[in-house]
Each structure stands twice: as C-alpha cells, then as structure tokens.
C-alpha cells in the first residue's frame, strides 16, 4: 500500500488567490496574516488610548466626532464614565491578546520557526490555518461588542468577578458585552492552542539534519518556550471563560456569592467564589505576560548578536534563563492578588518566587551586556530597537522590585505605578521587539529592504516618546494616583492632573510617529530596494534560502546543519562569519560542546 512518510509535510504550491493568500496552509502566509491582524489591532488599540488619554488630561473636553462612535457613550462628544471604562477594557484586551501575543509569537514564529529549524512547513498546516482564522474570528467577536446593546464590557481586561459575572445590572456593557468578551477570549484560546501544538511539534520533530536543540537560534528557542507556556496557560483560561459565560447565560453561580444587592434588589445567585476567578485568571494571566515578552527576548538576542558580529557570550545560559522565567511565571501569579483578601500568608509565599524571578531576568540582561562588551556593534534600525528594548526591559524590570513585595504593594497596588511597570517591561518592550524583528526580517518576508532613514527617525521618536509617557506613570503611582479612574475628582489627585496632560501630549506625539513606520512598511513593500538573500550577513537558516523564500522554504533541498547558530567574528569563507549549514572547518569555532 502507498504510505506517505509521516515526517514530510508535502503540499504543492497553491494555485489561485484564495488558497494562496486567504485560506493558505503555508506557514509564511499565515505568519504574514497574523502580522497584518496585529497591525490592525495595534492601530485600534492606539487610537483608543489616544481618546482615553485626552479624556484623562482634559475631562469634559468634547472630542469632535466622538459621538459618531457611540451616541450614548459620548453624548455631545463628551465621554461618559462608562464609555471610558469600555474603551479602557478594549484597549487592554486588544493589546494583550491581539497584538502582544499575535505579533511576536504567532506572526514571526509562524514565518521563521520552520525555516530556522530547517523544515518545509509546520507538521499540521491545516491546524495552522485554522489557528489564524479562529483568532481572526475572536477579534471580530470582540470588536462586534462595540456595536451590540450598550457597548463593550467595562470590566477591564482582567474581568474580575462578580462585576463581570452578575450581568447587566452591574452597569452598561456588563450583559452582552461580557458574554462577547468571554466568547472572544475562549475562541482566541482555541486558536493559540492549535498554534502552540504546531510550534512545539515543529521544534521537536521537524528539525533538519544536524539541527540539535542546542543549535536552534535563540528566537526559535523563545518561540518554543512560549508555545509550551501558551499550551498550558490558554488551556486554563478557556474553562474560566466558559464558566463565566455560564454564570451569565445559564444562571449558574461559579463566581457570584449570595446576597449581593444592586439597585435595592437581591441578586438570585448563591455561594459563588469571587477569588476563584482571580486564581484561574492570573494562573493564565501571569504566564501570558511572559508569553508576550519571551519572544521579544529571543528576537532581540537574535538581532543583536547578528549586529554585534560575535557569538553570544553564552547561548546556553540565555536558553536556560528563558526556561527559568517560563517555569517561575507559574509560581508567582499570586503577586497580582496581594491585597485581594486571599490569605496573607500566601501573599508572602508568592512574594519570594516573584523576587527570585529578578535573577534570571538579570542574567539575561547581563549576558546581553557581556556580549556587547568587546563586540563590533553595527548600528542600524533593527539593532537600535533591540538596544532600546534592553533599556526598556531594565527600566520596567526594576520597578518589579517594589511590586514583588506585599508590604510596598499596599501603597502601589492598582496605582499608575503598576501601569507604568507593565507597560514598560512587557508592552512597550515587546513592541520594540516587534519593531526590531520587523526591520530585521522584513527583507526576507517581503523581498525588499526597509528605508533606514525613516526607520531611524521612527526609532528616535518612539524611544524618547515612550520614556516621556511611561516614566511619569511611576511618579503618579507613588503619589497614590489610582488607575482605572475616568476622571480625578479626589482632592489629593488635583495636583497630578498637569502630569496627566504632559503624558497625553507625549502619547499623541509618539502615536503620530508610528505613522512613519506604517508609511515605511507600505512604501518599502512596493518601492523598497530589492533585498539580497542575506543582507545582514547572518548565519541562521532563514538567510541561506532565497528572498523571499520559495513555497517549500528551501527549494526542495533541506539544508544540513554543521554549527551552532551564531558563528560570527571568525575567519570564514564568507567573511567574518560562517553560516550554520556551511560544512567548513572552523579553527576558532564557538561550538558549545
């Protein structure tokens, strides 16, 4: 009988637009689709943040045309309290799920993981296609809540119960809005589970000859570790969302305790546990933060080392550190709940591993700095963003010292200090990782170079602007400025409003600067200089194949790998570097045996 080898993924190049660009099973196309989705999502999220920032700086300022977005949410263009919270929730949800998870992990990972391990495609291409379209559906469902009933939910991206679970009585958008939110996230989980399945199997089974796990580039390692986390984290969030939906539509009481009174009416639910939601959510939520940032670590290492023209001081230590971060991230989630009313002893129990996390993070930074030492650093947009990432990662990391301690968290919990912390360390840092990866890999993805001058302008505005926005957040937090307020009516917050005005202006300018990037992206896609196969003189497998790569990545000839990924700064036949697939002997090889 005719038995196809289980190892090969053989699907001929598709013909016809639909199979090629829409319902494609080619990991490269799917990667681009994820990237496009993330671009749309990040644009929506950014606009939302503008509107929120303006409202925070100048409450009751009429934003022209806002009522077109929602006539009840912004009567006479002035934002209502609930509408602010609704936009805030959507900003958080869209950014965390549809930008920070999709872009660095799903988008770049899909495109480059199979190429970097030397495979023709992912092992389950149809799951891969489903993974994207399911995620896309999730995005549509989420955005749909803007146009249903009294708008999206106002419960914040953490959707704490019982606010999220009691239904419409708790406020506008808490009925249909929450159901749509939870459905969207549950669907999203399915998509990411399918993706993770492919990523893990690709890394384990699809590596080409000689590509041992330790010879994988750091980016591939980051995606591998992230996919393992995604597999476990999203598998926990999905049931939580299902239970939340049931509390809404089926009248169960998983998260809603007895005798809650809203509008003088006793709610029908009984006996639910509000902390249950927090436990389930944060068991996902904290790993999710690392799901967002670890691909950034990998991408940045990959980009930096190429531009430092030397091998990483230690390939291994970086891999182990990323692994340690991943493992620890499951043991610390309780630090989001120090003052939540859970047992104060467990607060301490969670605080120590949280502090311990600073060790692997520090090691990562030190390895970067140590590799920077004595290197031959090449400055280009990609490396600038990578270095910017390090600076952000440090700045956002040190504020973790405070938040890891329950005693200090009494003062800083739910203040802008937290907002500043996670925006720097996971949000903006991850975004910088995405930018770095984009400027680095765009030639391979599109076949054309991006414009360096525009890129550098974009970097400078983003870098300075980001600090102008997020550093002041810490000061606000120290002064006790509570987050998730749509206006600052408390007396002690009045002197802080000028700071908010400053932040708003910085945010708008920085946001506008992003259009330079969009322009650069579109312009270079069509008019950019044609890209050579290996513009950065890099060593990993994505650079040995044609630009852009053929449908099966290596033109039917899978490479054989002879070296560790980053053989730079040595006399090779091809310059100061030897590519992973070049069989030549290296006198001063940096193989870590």
């Amino acid at each position, binding site marked *: 009988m005719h038995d196809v080898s*289980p190892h090969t993924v053989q699907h001929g190049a598709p013909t016809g637009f639909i199979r090629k660009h829409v319902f494609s099973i080619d990991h490269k196309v799917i990667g681009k689709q994820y990237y496009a989705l993330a671009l749309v999502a990040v644009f929506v999220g950014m606009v939302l943040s503008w509107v929120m920032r303006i409202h925070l700086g100048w409450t009751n300022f009429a934003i022209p045309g806002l009522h077109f977005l929602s006539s009840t949410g912004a009567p006479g263009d002035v934002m209502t309290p609930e509408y602010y919270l609704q936009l805030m929730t959507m900003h958080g949800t869209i950014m965390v799920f549809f930008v920070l998870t999709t872009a660095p992990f799903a988008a770049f990972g899909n495109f480059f993981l199979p190429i970097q391990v030397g495979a023709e495609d992912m092992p389950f291409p149809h799951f891969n296609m489903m993974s994207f379209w399911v995620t896309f559906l999730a995005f549509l469902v989420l955005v749909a809540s803007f146009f249903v009933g009294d708008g999206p939910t106002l419960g914040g991206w953490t959707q704490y119960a019982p606010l999220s679970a009691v239904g419409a009585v708790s406020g506008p958008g808490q009925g249909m809005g929450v159901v749509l939110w939870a459905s969207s996230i549950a669907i999203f989980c399915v998509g990411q589970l399918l993706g993770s399945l492919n990523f893990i199997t690709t890394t384990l089974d699809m590596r080409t000859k000689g590509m041992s796990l330790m010879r994988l580039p750091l980016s591939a390692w980051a995606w591998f570790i992230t996919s393992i986390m995604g597999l476990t984290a999203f598998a926990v969030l999905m049931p939580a969302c299902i239970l939340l939906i049931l509390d809404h539509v089926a009248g169960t009481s998983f998260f809603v305790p007895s005798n809650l009174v809203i509008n003088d009416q006793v709610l029908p639910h009984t006996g639910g546990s509000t902390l*249950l939601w927090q436990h389930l959510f944060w068991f996902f939520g904290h790993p999710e933060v690392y799901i967002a940032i670890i691909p950034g670590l990998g991408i940045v290492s990959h980009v930096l080392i190429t531009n430092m023209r030397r091998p990483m001081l230690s390939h291994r230590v970086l891999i182990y550190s990323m692994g340690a971060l991943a493992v620890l991230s499951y043991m610390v989630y309780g630090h989001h709940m120090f003052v939540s009313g859970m047992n104060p002893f467990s607060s301490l129990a969670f605080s120590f591993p949280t502090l311990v996390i600073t060790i692997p993070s520090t090691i990562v930074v030190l390895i970067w700095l140590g590799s920077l030492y004595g290197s031959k650093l090449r400055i280009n947009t990609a490396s600038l963003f990578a270095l910017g990432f390090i600076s952000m990662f440090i700045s956002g990391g040190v504020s973790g010292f405070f938040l890891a301690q329950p005693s200090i968290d009494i003062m800083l919990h739910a203040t802008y200090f937290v907002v500043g912390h996670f925006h720097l360390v996971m949000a903006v840092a991850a975004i910088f990782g995405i930018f770095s990866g984009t400027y680095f890999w765009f030639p391979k993805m599109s076949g054309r170079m991006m414009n360096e001058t525009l890129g550098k302008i974009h970097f400078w505005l983003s870098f300075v602007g980001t600090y102008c926005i997020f550093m002041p957040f810490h000061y606000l937090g120290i002064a006790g400025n509570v987050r998730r307020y749509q206006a600052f009516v408390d007396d002690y917050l009045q002197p802080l409003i000028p700071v908010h005005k400053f932040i708003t202006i910085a945010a708008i300018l920085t946001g506008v600067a992003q259009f330079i990037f969009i322009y650069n992206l579109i312009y270079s896609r069509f008019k950019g200089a044609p890209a050579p196969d290996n513009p950065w*003189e890099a060593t990993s497998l994505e650079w040995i194949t044609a630009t852009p790569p053929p449908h099966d990545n290596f033109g039917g000839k899978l490479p054989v790998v002879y070296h560790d990924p980053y053989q730079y700064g040595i006399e090779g036949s091809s310059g100061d570097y030897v590519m992973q697939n070049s069989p030549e002997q290296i006198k001063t090889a940096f193989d870590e045996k």
Partner: protein
Amino acid sequence: MATTVHELPKSEPRRSSNEGSGNGGWRNLVPAGGDARKLADYSPPPASTGIWVALASITMTFAAFTSALVVRQASALDWRHISLPSILYWNTLVIFASSFTLEVSRRQVATYMGGLRSQVARPARWLYVTLFLGLLFVAGQYAAWLQLGSQGLYLPTNPSSSFFYVLTAAHGLHVLGGLGGLARVVRKLSNSTLRRSTLDATSRYWHFMDVLWLYLLLLLWMKL
C-alpha cells in the same frame, strides 16, 4: 548596508520518502566537515508527538475545571450532594469496551498495512464497532442528563449539578472529537491513505478519553 554574500545553500539531495526531515536528538551533531549520511536518522512522526502535546493541554483544561470545583466547594455552604445517575456506570463499561475494540482493530489494521492483506478480510470492521460504542457512550451521557433533569436537577440548580453538567459536557465534546478522528481513520483506510502514526495517535487519544472519563467519574463520585 552590509554587502551580500551569495553562497549556494549547502544541502543534501531530497530525501526519499521513507527518510525523515526531522533529525532532532539532543546531542546529535554533525561533525563539522563530516558526512551527513552517517547520521542515525530518527525522530518520532509529528502526529505521535503532536497527540501527546494535545493531551497535555486537555489535561490542563480539566485540571483547571477540577481546581475550580474544589475552590467552589470550599467557598460556600450551598454545596448539595447529588447521587450520580446509575447509567453512568454502564457508560463507563461501554467506553472501556470501545477502547478494547479499538485496540483489536488497531492490530488488525497494522497487519493489513503491513502488507498481509490476505489475513485480514475487513480491517475496518472493528473500527465500526468502536464508532458505534463511542456513539452509544455519548447517547448514554445524554440519558444521564435526562435522568438528572427528571430529578429536577439542571445546570443552574446547585453547584454540584452545575459542575456535573459542565464536566460531562466538556468530556462529551472531546469524545465527539475522537469519533470524528475515528471516522477520518476509517475514510483514510478505505482510500488507503492511512498512516500508522495517524492510527496510533487517534487510538492514543481515544484511550486517553476513557482514562479521563474514569478520572471524572471518580471526581464526581467523591465530590458531588
């Protein structure tokens, strides 16, 4: 802008179909300059790795449900004991029987695919039996719901019944997925595009389903 080095990719001629693309292994390095052909060439077929990965995430999901159940039970005094519908125990027998028949058919199909077609007249027969038993199990679970309903216990009635419906429904959906997989195996077998790895993965999933069911039964029996 760095100068480009146009270097022909070093690569080997395309594998023949019985040879793998994957060549993982932890320390399985090609000696620099050495001959790639010398390499031991084995890595498990993706399907068999993939199924373990999938089972891992399913385990996580049900672990989450379990912890939810434990926390919820501890959170309030409104936990009411409900006695499990007796039919569940019959369903347990059914799904175990299905595992057994699937194992039988797996061996037969193996022999069949092994080229010894003469010995196996109709390899799909036991697969059909398994499919039937699977459907019977799902029907049985539905009957169990009806039994509970007749006692006036519905999804929102009390936390115990809520968790009973949620857990059985979640498990039932996974079983339906398994049935889809089996149907796919039957189809592939009939037009002889079936891979061993597909068959093994599917049966692994199926066996996991009844182990999972046994776990759920114990959980419900102890907790509810």
